[in-house]
């Protein structure tokens, strides 16, 4: 192929690409193209597809056997990929010395074996129907090479070696990341030789850079007005819709929010479709569930809460708050009171609820949210694994501060339902259980779905194949110019 270079905007300082402790989507985007998992997500459909594993089988969701692809080559001359690499990678995550925050994802593993170099057998402690997500090309699922890790020492995050379509050629942490085509990639070399990521933090500047022709592809434009300009100027608006939903976390330890009628009243009181249409019609839509409509387990039968202020008022009165109450909301100060919050305040005030914002800077916000020190807060659910979402956010073992269940939700019926769903091997039965779980959750409303976000990667018209998957990632192997 030709030696083409694609210049891509990168929107923040890179934080490193070690799968064991990688953070933030933009970094994962790089890692996604360097590493591979046993499975991966299809860029167009979001379905799980084979990656390093050609095929797999399980009967009971307990024992998983993966047949590995043969002849896969490591980048930078580290030889052929084998089952040992898979075992090494997972053990590394599980090793306390690695201090990986993703360790909990793999703690369900009972044993791992490699009967031959191209087979991996994993036995779980409990059945898990969503296990394919765990081994996908996504942080803990990304396979690393022992020798490369050891050679890098404490600089692993800056010296990633994978089996993906691109390898890291050079990096200047403050301005630039250069990826080069991995010629030995098992699907064949990617069409574009060099990916040149330029760090441009300001969205407006990034748009100007695209319009100036300085970059080919703009990773993530999150200003509605700039999207309009770029669209009008004829740029290609690559995007993925509903990649994540934003929820309002209702803290159950709060005496007021404990009452389900209050939670339902809040849900009825705010007209999210109207809000999103007003502020950011391209970037946002209204969410109706914790799970996204494109997920295979998504159920249409769960209750929804259309805008109905009268009903909200009635519910409040029933709950004993005819004159409303004060709803304290924790938020980040990075954008101040967002337009969305302004609308929420407005809508809630119409049913008598006084929403008060408590804005703190991002680290503080994260800390308090993780500890569960708030009345309500918002959370973005980016995970592609519906099972993970339900477990992390609703299962009592994950109640904050230990886990992500910030609502401190503990409903025995739901707990048993999701545990059963995870273990269920029969797909149909599994779907039923998931539908039931969604029904319970949406009736109980520990999290009120607010908005869902869309991700835009505007590009020049000659850039093809920018398929943003539901993790907001692009597989650059597909991209041509």
């Amino acid at each position, binding site marked *: 192929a030709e030696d083409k270079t694609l210049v891509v905007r990168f929107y923040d300082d890179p934080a490193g690409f070690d799968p064991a402790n990688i953070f933030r989507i933009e970094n994962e985007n790089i890692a996604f193209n360097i590493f591979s998992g046993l499975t991966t997500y299809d860029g167009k459909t979001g379905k799980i597809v084979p990656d390093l594993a050609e095929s797999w089988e399980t009967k009971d969701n307990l024992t998983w056997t993966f047949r590995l692809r043969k002849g896969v080559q490591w980048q930078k001359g580290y030889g052929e990929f084998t089952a040992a690499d898979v075992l090494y990678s997972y053990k590394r995550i599980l090793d306390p010395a690695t201090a990986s925050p993703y360790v909990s994802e793999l703690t369900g593993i009972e044993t791992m074996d490699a009967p031959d170099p191209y087979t991996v057998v994993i036995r779980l402690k409990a059945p898990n129907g969503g296990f394919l997500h765990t081994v996908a090309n996504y942080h803990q699922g990304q396979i690393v090479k022992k020798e490369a890790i050891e050679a890098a020492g404490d600089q692993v995050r800056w010296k990633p070696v994978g089996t993906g379509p691109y390898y890291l050629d050079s990096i200047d942490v403050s301005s630039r990341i250069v990826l080069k085509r991995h010629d030995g990639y098992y699907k064949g070399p990617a069409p574009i030789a060099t990916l040149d990521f330029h760090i441009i933090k300001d969205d407006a500047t990034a748009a100007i850079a695209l319009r100036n022709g300085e970059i080919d592809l703009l990773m993530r434009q999150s200003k509605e007005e700039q999207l309009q300009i770029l669209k009008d100027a004829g740029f290609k608006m690559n995007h993925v819709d509903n990649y994540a939903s934003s929820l309002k976390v209702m803290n159950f330890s709060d005496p007021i929010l404990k009452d389900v009628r209050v939670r339902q009243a809040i849900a009825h009181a705010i007209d999210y479709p109207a809000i999103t249409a007003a*502020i950011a019609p391209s970037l946002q839509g209204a969410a109706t569930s914790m799970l996204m409509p494109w997920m295979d387990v998504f159920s249409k039968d769960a209750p929804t809460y259309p805008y109905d202020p009268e009903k909200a008022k009635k519910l409040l009165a029933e709950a004993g708050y005819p004159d409303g109450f004060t709803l304290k909301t924790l938020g980040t100060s990075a954008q101040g009171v967002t*337009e969305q919050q302004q609308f929420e305040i407005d809508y809630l005030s119409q049913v008598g609820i006084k929403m008060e914002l408590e804005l*703190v800077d991002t*680290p503080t916000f994260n800390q308090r949210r993780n500890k569960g020190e708030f009345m309500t807060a918002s959370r973005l659910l980016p995970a592609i694994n519906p099972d993970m979402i339900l477990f992390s956010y609703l299962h009592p073992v994950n109640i904050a501060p230990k886990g992500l269940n910030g609502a401190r939700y503990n409903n025995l019926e739901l707990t048993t339902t999701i545990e059963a769903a995870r273990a269920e091997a029969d797909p149909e039965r599994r779907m039923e259980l998931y539908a039931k779980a969604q029904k319970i959750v949406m009736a109980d409303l520990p999290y009120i779905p607010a908005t869902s976000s869309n991700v835009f990667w505007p590009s020049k018209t000659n850039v093809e194949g920018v398929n943003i998957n539901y993790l907001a990632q692009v597989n650059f192997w597909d991209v041509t110019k």
Partner: protein
Amino acid sequence: MAHISISLPAFRSFQLQVSDMPGLMRLLSNRRIQAALLILVPILLLTVFRPFLPIPGPLETNLRAMTKPPSLDHLFGTDRMGRDLLSRTLAGVQISMFVGFAVALLSLCVGLVMGTLAGFFGGVIDRLMMTITDIFLAFPSLLLAIGLVSVMGTGMLPVVLAISLSDVPRFIRLQRSLVLSLRSRAYIDAARTVRASQMWLMTRHIIPNTIAPLLVAASIAAANAILVEAGLSFLGLGIMPPAPSLGNLIRDGQTYLEQAWWISTLPGTVILLIAISLHFLSDGIRQVLDPRSRK
């Protein structure tokens, strides 16, 4: 981004002679002060009487009039949420003026007290104070702002404190130098010959004579604070939207420059006018104070 650095360059050029108290009339007859008041007074009046003007409230959204250019209905146009920008600008003036005034007052008061102590007593107190001011001057003011906002959350108080914190050392130094030049005045000696107490000397003789030059510095500090607030808002450290501080208005509008120039330009012009008139004010006071310009 000179403004975030919260620099008060005017301080350094401060070659004011401490001299007679300018009478109110003398102040009012100065051209610059007149010009300043000509701008400030109408703006302030409009601000104060905004609630009685026939314009929507600053937070009232109107989804039917989003991003409308200036017209008779909306003299300054509307923003993306259909809020009237004239109303928001006036409300913003109120907030910004408050920030400016609070910063000026706070810095002035702290600077006055500490500077007087350092200049008057000298010795260990002075050296300690100077070291502390040195430390604060060597400290990037932006960091102070981030720190304060993190501790206290965003809002008026942390913004005022953050801006003041970097002004205060300069006020201390200014006051100190003024005190030093006053300390050797003959009238201080005259009071000392009758054993006047230190307190008496400071409150009767020194402080009253440093107020005017401090006011000059304070009006510049106020102008600066308004701009710094705008800069802090840009970094998300200022006064939180939707509160329409002028900084927020400019920031909100700046990405729409191409589509809706008025959103940031008009409030920006108002900031400019206010800041300029505050500078005029300080120039005016300075002129009145300068013995040479008085003949």
